[in-house]
């Protein structure tokens, strides 16, 4: 029984992967994302593997504070005060990616739960939830993130909580829209007629059928959150941690030097961000095609 239930899901997953890997752009995206995740994992568990020490700080070197151009010793050059950009980026990947996954996973889980409950029960619960999401959509998210950070404080954790508060409504909306359609399907009616409880109908019958667009949204949001964190750090809304390894912060200290001609101080950190966001967006676009029912048949 268990065997029969599982097979179609695995098959469906394999089909998704097959369609995904048909497009070279998606393959590129997946490979780049995996490399970033691998670097983040190495930073987390054994940084000495890629020769890193002190992964929580950008390790300034005050003996040679002025930026040095790229050289064999510093492949991407250095930035004031003597921070090596290459190792800085490697360390930043752990913070930036970890932060993005933390925010998007928690935001997606809470949004999905709220959305399914809201759609399933309908009525005033649905009305209240949807009006709350309206409030979040009526203010630009960057402004809202800054305002929440202002009132709650400026640590990386609080910033992530603020972004989760901003991000769940997107998922609630997407899942609600899907669930409303699924709720009316005959198999849900059949489940209800055979006496299945509310929570089992919601999470076992409706939820799995709403997840395809969630995965797509998830990959786009990973890119957006990484860029958002970098942007917040860049405009000086950084968590109170000098030398926090983050690509936005790295770019912001390079800014003044880039203006006087030291291009490497901003080009490389920005490129590190661009590459991840591009890869994640390509994966999302590929997933959208791969999960599109019209293309699967």
């Amino acid at each position, binding site marked *: 029984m268990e065997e029969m239930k599982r097979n179609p899901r695995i098959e469906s997953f394999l089909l998704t992967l097959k369609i995904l890997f048909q497009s070279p752009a998606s393959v590129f995206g997946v490979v780049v994302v995996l490399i970033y995740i691998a670097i983040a994992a190495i930073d987390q568990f054994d940084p000495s593997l890629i020769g890193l020490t002190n992964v929580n700080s950008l390790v300034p070197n005050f003996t040679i504070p002025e930026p040095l151009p790229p050289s064999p010793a510093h492949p991407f050059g250095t930035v004031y005060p003597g921070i090596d950009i290459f190792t800085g980026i490697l360390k930043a990947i752990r913070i930036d990616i970890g932060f993005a996954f933390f925010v998007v996973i928690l935001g997606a889980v809470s949004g999905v739960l709220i959305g399914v409950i809201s759609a399933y029960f309908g009525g005033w619960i649905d009305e209240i939830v949807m009006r709350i999401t309206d409030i979040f*959509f009526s203010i*630009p998210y*960057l*402004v809202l993130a800054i305002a929440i950070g202002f009132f709650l404080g400026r640590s990386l954790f609080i910033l992530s909580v603020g972004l989760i508060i901003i991000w769940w409504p997107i998922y609630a909306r997407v899942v609600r829209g899907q669930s409303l359609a699924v709720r009316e399907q005959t198999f849900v009616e059949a489940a209800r007629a055979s006496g299945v409880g509310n929570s089992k109908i919601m999470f076992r019958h409706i939820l799995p059928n709403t997840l395809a667009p969630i995965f797509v949204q998830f990959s786009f949001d990973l890119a957006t959150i990484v860029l958002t964190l970098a942007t917040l750090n*860049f*405009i000086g809304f950084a968590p109170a941690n000098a030398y926090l390894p983050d690509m936005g912060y790295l*770019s912001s200290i390079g800014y003044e030097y880039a*203006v006087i001609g030291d291009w490497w101080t901003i080009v490389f*950190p920005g490129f590190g961000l661009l590459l991840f*966001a591009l890869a994640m967006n390509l994966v999302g676009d590929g997933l959208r095609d791969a999960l599109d029912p019209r293309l699967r048949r």
Partner: protein
Amino acid sequence: MIISSYLNPHLPYAVQRAMLVKEFHLNDPIWVQYYYYMVGLLQGNWGYTHTAIYSGPVTTAISLFLPNTIQLSIIAFIIAVVIAIPAGQESAVRKNSAVDQISRFVAFVGISLPVFWLAQILSEVFATPTVSPALNILPLSGTVDATLMAGVPWINSIGVSNPTHIMMIDALIHGNLPIFFSSIRHVILPAATLAFTSIAGIMRYMRASMVESLSQDYVKTARSKGLPEKVVIKVHARKNALIPVVTILGLLFAGLLGGVVVIEDLFSYPGMGLWTVDAILGYDSGGIMGTTIVFGLILVTANFIVDLLYAWIDPRIRLGE
């Protein structure tokens, strides 16, 4: 400082303090203070802001900064729409051609670019003499050359122009071309940066919508009637493809406003965004509350305009069907 305007230096310190406490309801619980704030909002008393670029009533700051932001974001929005809609249409018509692939690549790079990074690169290339002397053709910051503004009768002491408050339009009204061109030169870099970030989104939506619309039966019918391809695309396919695109333009405008915060800061463009950042960095709650409310209002207004446009494009809605 604003507070000093409330104080009479001849009074004893304790009296001054008591007057301030009374004026700002500092002894009341926070919900009572919130009540006073909300009443003040409705009465046009939005509190005070004290930042590096402006100190004074929030409402005055809004009248100073909001027109600049409107000018910037509308120009950016127009640039984005004018480029993105035809590009999206073209890549849908020539699906999977080189044009489509290139525009797809550009679109994804556009979504993935960190805004602040693009702004840095552009300002280095076009506005930094030390990096690129040949291309140093645009100003790096501000809205208009300060030397041109001196002594102009229709610009008041804090830099607000009359009658519309939007410098570019006022310059045209008064026939002052140097100021007009100066403000265009100042807006190019921030507007281009801002536009580039939204082009990608609009273009992808337009392409998807156009592909959908081109596969519909009415397009087949139009083609089999023998209509020229140009008419089929322009009249039959594009009009229907635009409907969903217009609905998301309101949301994209929100994204644009988010970008304004960063871009104005980078280009020292005195608008709502720069004020927001200054207010946040200075823990200026009056400014933060004021800017957040204004951003919300702009968004609601944008969505309202989109609803109206929607009715204009889709006659079925106008007829109430």
